[in-house]
């Protein structure tokens, strides 16, 4: 199918504040968001039609980014101290034909208020003549970290996705470069590189049909940037192959236009738009999801919304708990060597908070890790705190003992404690991110006595039983946690 009339997302009013953990908060209405770019501590993404979104913290997004030229599906990449923009100047059959043009331009800033904010004249780097099997829109940018060469794929369902090379110094097409077909049946393609593989991501399905849009993002990979890009069953993307990265789910549908952002070693997110957010009148919204890597394939992680969890260290599998007395559950013992087969089976209730809370101290209680025994002092409720802001991909959370307001907090000595009542203090707020291997890392928003927002110290197993705060290191299981619903 081809692109259909869209652009209802192009709205300049703010929705009312949404307190539940939505896709992103604010007014994140966009179609074909560019890979998220950072400039002077703010995040930017640009969409079809012109303009784009800005976020101070990566979680709350609003309109205000500026891009001239209109057209479809831009991408932005920082090269040196400048940002290279690439976009399709046309509408992919919407304006009538398939005469597409891909243009590039530079800017020293993304902030429209900056004195450095000025676009260079846009220059054409690729085109389609309206008859050939290609429609030159929807470009992306990949600066190959192994060679320093700059690549672009572009195209839609009207024919093939094509690969060209640009000059990273000028943003112009490399002289003599001949375009090459690398996939069919895609639009809004993106190229990424990881660990010896080039990945071509494409959007399959139909866009712009609201809650009935079937858009989904698939991927193929190759050892060479020029392909062939094969999927997990060996099917070439030139034959329509592709492995699913993200499809509908969680009250949103129609993900399209992939972008990868590396936050830290082992911490990545993908950006996309969802054609329809079922909780926002079916509008097209920005989506940011953890990006997982499974056996060398990218997959979207789940949006972390909180809930009741056992927090299990990946060091040994011990569980984060309050350092309180272990309270035995009273039980009529049925030893395996003298069971009375005539007695009916009974169900033993879980230990309840009320059974044990009186044994806990009133003040601060320190935390430790130990064998998970399904006990109240090991059960944590993780709840978003919307008024506390967020980070790229999520809001800050409080982590409290289930059924209480007792909250996990960082101390000025880079240790942990559980304060009796959650007060909203920044050391009681937690940034929770799913890692590329599917586990999680947890960072306090702030550390008492230290300025600014903490982006370095994570919950860490100093020993099997001893949690602490240590600088992030993806290479050790000490820094990783499993959040298990109990």
């Amino acid at each position, binding site marked *: 199918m081809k692109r*259909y009339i869209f*652009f209802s997302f192009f709205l300049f009013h703010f929705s009312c504040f949404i307190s539940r953990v939505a896709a992103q908060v604010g007014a994140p209405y966009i179609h074909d968001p560019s890979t998220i770019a950072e400039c002077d501590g703010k995040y930017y993404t640009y969409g079809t039609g012109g303009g784009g979104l800005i976020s101070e913290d990566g979680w709350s997004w609003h309109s205000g980014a500026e891009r001239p030229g209109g*057209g479809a599906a831009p991408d932005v990449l920082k090269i040196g101290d400048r940002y290279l923009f690439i976009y399709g100047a046309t509408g992919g059959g919407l304006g009538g034909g398939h005469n597409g043009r891909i243009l590039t331009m530079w800017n020293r800033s993304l902030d429209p208020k900056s004195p450095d904010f000025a676009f260079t004249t846009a220059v054409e780097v690729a085109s389609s003549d309206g008859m050939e099997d290609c429609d030159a829109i929807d470009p992306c940018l990949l600066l190959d970290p192994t060679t320093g060469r700059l690549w672009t794929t572009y195209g839609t369902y009207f024919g093939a996705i094509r690969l060209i090379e640009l000059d990273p110094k000028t943003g*112009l097409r490399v002289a003599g470069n001949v375009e090459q077909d690398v996939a069919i049946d895609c639009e809004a393609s993106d190229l990424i590189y990881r660990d010896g593989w080039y990945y071509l991501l494409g959007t399959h*399905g139909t866009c712009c*049909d609201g809650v009935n849009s079937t858009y989904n993002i698939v991927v193929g990979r190759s050892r060479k940037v020029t392909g062939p890009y094969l999927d997990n069953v060996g*099917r070439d993307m030139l*034959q329509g192959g592709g492995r699913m990265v993200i499809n509908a789910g969680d009250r949103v549908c129609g993900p399209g236009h992939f972008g990868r952002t590396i936050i830290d070693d082992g911490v990545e997110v993908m950006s996309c738009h969802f054609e329809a957010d079922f909780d926002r009148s079916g509008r097209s919204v920005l989506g940011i999801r953890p990006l997982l890597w499974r056996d060398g394939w990218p997959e979207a992680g789940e949006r972390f919304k909180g809930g009741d969890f056992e927090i299990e260290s990946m060091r040994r599998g011990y569980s984060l708990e309050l350092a309180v007395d272990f309270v035995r559950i009273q039980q009529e013992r049925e030893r395996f060597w003298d069971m009375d087969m005539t007695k009916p089976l009974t169900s033993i209730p879980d230990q309840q908070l009320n059974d044990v809370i009186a044994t806990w101290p009133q003040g601060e209680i320190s935390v430790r890790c130990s064998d998970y025994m399904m006990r109240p002092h090991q059960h944590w409720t993780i709840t978003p705190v919307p008024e506390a802001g967020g980070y790229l991909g999520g809001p800050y959370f409080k982590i409290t003992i289930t059924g209480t307001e007792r909250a996990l907090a960082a101390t000025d000595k880079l240790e942990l404690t559980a304060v009796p009542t959650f007060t909203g203090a920044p050391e009681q707020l937690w940034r929770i991110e799913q890692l590329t291997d599917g586990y999680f890392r947890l960072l306090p928003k702030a550390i008492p006595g230290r300025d600014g927002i903490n982006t370095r110290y994570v919950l860490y197993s100093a020993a099997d039983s001893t949690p602490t705060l240590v600088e992030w290191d993806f290479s050790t299981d000490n820094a990783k946690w499993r959040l298990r619903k109990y």
Partner: protein
Amino acid sequence: MKRNLVVRHKLFIFFLTFHSALFSYHVVAQNPIVRDQFTADPTARVFNGRIYLYPSHDIQVAEGARPNWFCMADYHVFSSDDLTSWQDHGVIVLQEDVPWGRPNGYSMWAPDCVEKGGKYYFYFPNGPKDGRGFAIGVATADLPDGPYKLEPEPIKGVAGIDPCVFIDDDGIAYLYWSGMGLRGAKLKENMKELEGESRVMEGLPEGFKEGPFAFKRNGHYYLTFPWVRKEGGTETLAYAMSDSPLGPWTFKGVIMTEHDNGCWTNHHSLVEYKGQWYLFYHHNDFSPRDDKRRSVCIDKIAFNADGTIQEVKPTLRGVGIIPATSRLEVDRYSVSSDGVTTALNDTINTFCGFHATLPQKGSWLTFGDVDFSSVTDGYVIIRVKADENTELAVREKNAKGKIIARFKVTVKSEVTRPGAPAPFRRDQSGQWLTLTLPLDYTPKGIADLVVTCEDKAVSIDWILFRNRQRYFTPVAKNAAPSQPDERGYIRRWRLLEPIKQDIRSNVIFTDSWLRKTFADELAKLSKQKGKWYTLESDHYNMKLFRFAEKYGSQLYGNLFWCETYIDCPEDIANVRLAVGSNGASMWWLNGEEVLLLEGDRRMVEDDGVSNRFTLKKGRNVLRGAVINGPGLSDMCVHFIDEKGKPVTNFQIQ
């Protein structure tokens, strides 16, 4: 010297890179012929059947150089074998490398190059290190494009500019130059020293003269030169004739009158190439406000029976036959109706070229000598802009000639429905648009193209013809059977001309709707009057969209019936039919339904497969129906075995 050369080459490569988005490597030229840099003072020579161009190389005034003056720091050489595609061979001599020259003189004015005894002698003026004025140096090479080895000293006894060397039939070489009038002298056998004294050329008219170019034709010696004929005027190109190489001369008149835009200089050469004489000259097309940045042009030149030269009117079109499949800069037209104007596309980056404006209905321009022999299954692309909706036609021969394509130029689109998205309602008046159309008519051989304005004013930048990609080939009635390809794909199909369907955009085809539609259409199939086509696809898939484009009445919203006959040498059991289709499709083997692909479908290899069946020995009939809304319809079909491997041991009739 080497280091400098490398640096300069890098700059040159950068320059090429910068313009690669706009121009091809080999510049396809109308006038001016070099369209990515300035070129002036052209000397054209034919070496080994190829034409070589040695111009000077204007650049913007460098820091420290004389303001508002000529500025030249190096020489490039260009070559061509058709006078339209010019290859830039890059820098051959740099001012910093001239042993006797000022490294920052920026005075590398008009050069020349001749061949003698298999060696190439390059002559150029330059400011000497230790003196005023100009001297003339020599560099030698084994090939016309170098590398050139510079002589340590300039030619003794020569003070001036604009060297020209003429070698007579007896092998004696003469050097002409401009310095206190036009002068000439014999050159020694070594080509690097004067033989005796130089002398002023006699018999020439009063007035400023420079840039001598001497040649011989039919026993006549010619001396041609830029000449200011009127007090306070600008340069013409003029000539004189003689019976001997150093005169005395008889003045004959003007070859080209003064440039009508006031460009002060002109400088030239004449050359015979493939039986035709050409005049190379320069004009400041790419620098209209500064006549010291110039560009080389070519026009044909003719001689009368008595050896006199016919005056040349400069044209925009220039010379050479241009393939229709290269970019035709029709703003460089051969002739036009009154009122047609040309202007730069970008007054700052002037190398973005020109466009022509046809001011009203009936205006036209002709672009001559376009070779259509390369256009077989063509379409045409034009770059145009207009302020109002208008139309233009591309015709053959003249303003009333046969229409090749007629374009509607819609810059203010009617709102198709209320609330249509703003970006696609936008006013495109005054913006450059690239429009594409299939050809109504394809000229044969070499033709003159005419662009006619059919409504309101319109501007045109270029025209380009291309051939469609081939997707399939019609199969003759008695053709041999086809084989599945190496992946088992069936490429030979009988296709019924597309049947129009009323399908809304972006439909997810439902099973029940498809079943009813396919059943209804199947019932009607035997009564369908449409024509069947037997085609062999060039690809593993059959591009039904392109089939509809060629044989149908509409591109989108079609149902396609496909049939093929599978001849098996024996029963093949446990076979599945594997199909990808855009969009939904249904498939029957020997009349039995075997597969339905529903929903929002695109053509993906092995998207859906049938249950197992047996392909029977002998003929099996495979029939499919593919239905599609707004997409690029196609399908790929093969049989696979139990393990998913393609089945290939059959023939396709």
